[in-house]
């Protein structure tokens, strides 16, 4: 069981900044995210795109914003459960919470802060009849363990970076790699496209375009896929695995069943005070919440995280007196023993 003061669901910019604000109040944070890396949309969808409305940054790339936030929060030694989705929440008799992920990892926390953005990123599944029947029996949407494909036949479909990069990678692992895309053109980094071309010329990747996988063949396990080339009859390609790679799309998911008040795919919160939900002790901050006048902006998420942490502190320590301290005055004392502080002025007589 992982224990922490504040359990943050979602490691996007709002969730990450919460670590810092909580740390100033000596509260420890642990984060859960369905993606394998922190940063949320900023890392997953648009790491190379600039953002222009982060205060004091005339321009910053989304990926760089994530790195800066990670650097800023490092002192507070946050814990991460990555690649897992928060599935259930159980309120304990003492008012604390246990959150369990889809992989069974349990987290015990005094406060839960949902900073889930538009939801957890789930793979987009092509519309192929009987596709779901073969899930984990030869159909995989995410490649977790490349060794699974050692000396196997693999068909990948998709035309983006991940389809290209995995086709290239698996060409050294699998016995046979076929890449299928609706167009002749692939969209990816130039060197990936060139590498794929080179491997095709060497006969190490079989590329079929413009074509689509229309059906899956097999009894319990995938034994082949039906591939339809534009204007031609479908042909069967023997394969052990079919990996559709069509990107990810966010879904609110299990959080929608936690008994929280939901409006327009977002969680209703009290914006007059502290961004708490209808369940005391559970807060929702950033893009995942809604209230009159809500704007889904990173900078609004930062503000919401800050107020939320003050409220969380009062909830954990109802009788402790506290006033907010400026970091310039008090410095920043990390849980790792480091301290950042303003250099002291020198007091010295001038002769």
């Amino acid at each position, binding site marked *: 069981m992982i224990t922490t003061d504040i359990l943050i669901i979602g490691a996007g910019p709002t969730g990450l900044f919460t670590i810092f604000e909580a740390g100033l109040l000596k509260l420890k944070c642990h984060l859960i995210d369905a993606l394998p890396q922190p940063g949320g*949309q900023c890392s997953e*969808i*648009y790491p190379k*795109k600039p953002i222009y409305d982060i205060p004091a940054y005339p321009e910053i790339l989304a990926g760089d914003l994530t790195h800066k936030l990670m650097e800023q929060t490092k002192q507070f030694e946050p814990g991460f459960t990555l690649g897992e989705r928060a599935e259930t929440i159980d309120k304990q008799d003492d008012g604390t919470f246990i959150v369990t992920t889809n992989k069974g990892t349990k987290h015990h926390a005094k406060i839960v802060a949902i900073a889930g953005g*538009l*939801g957890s990123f789930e793979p*987009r599944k*092509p*519309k192929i009849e009987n596709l779901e029947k073969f899930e984990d029996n030869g159909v995989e949407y995410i490649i977790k363990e490349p060794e699974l494909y050692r000396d196997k036949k693999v068909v990948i479909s*998709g*035309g*983006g970076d991940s389809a290209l990069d995995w086709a290239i990678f698996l060409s050294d692992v699998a016995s046979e790699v076929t890449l299928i*895309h*609706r*167009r002749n*053109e692939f*969209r990816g980094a130039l060197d990936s496209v060139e590498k794929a071309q080179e491997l095709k010329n060497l006969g190490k990747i079989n590329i079929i375009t413009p074509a689509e996988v229309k059906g899956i063949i097999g009894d319990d396990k995938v034994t082949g896929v039906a591939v339809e080339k534009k204007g031609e009859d479908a042909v069967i390609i023997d394969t052990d695995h079919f990996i559709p790679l*069509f*990107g990810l*799309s*966010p879904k*609110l998911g299990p959080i929608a069943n936690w008994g929280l008040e939901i409006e*327009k*795919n*977002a969680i209703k919160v009290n914006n007059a005070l502290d961004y708490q939900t209808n369940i005391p002790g559970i807060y929702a901050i950033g893009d995942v919440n809604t209230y009159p006048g809500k704007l889904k902006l990173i900078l609004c998420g930062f503000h919401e995280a800050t107020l939320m942490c003050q409220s969380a502190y009062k909830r954990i320590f109802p009788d402790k007196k506290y006033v907010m301290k400026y970091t310039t005055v008090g410095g920043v004392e990390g849980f790792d023993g480091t301290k950042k502080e303003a250099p002291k002025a020198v007091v010295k007589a001038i002769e």
Partner: protein
Amino acid sequence: MSVDINIKITDRNGETHEIVAPTDMAMNLMEVVRSYELAEEGTIGICGGMAMCASCQCYVISDHQLPEMTDDEDAMLAEAFDVEDNSRLGCQIQMTPELEGLEVELAPES
């Protein structure tokens, strides 16, 4: 001077809405759909309008001259589902006076 245009948008439930869109607010079709709440919040414009998801895909029904597709939009549509010959990404269609009378249908959520 503001110039508004009249456009028809058929939502994902098949209902057609006749709406008025401003052409002086740098808005695109995806944003117009969101401003009128014709698709559930969180199911359209997920990437914010960078042609990096296909949540605002629509079918253009009227024969308006639309801005040419960028490589980004073209590539995104190549990976999207339910794509037809008249598919476009709403976020790439800016509201201009030339689009008076535009008719579109939103593609299914995916």
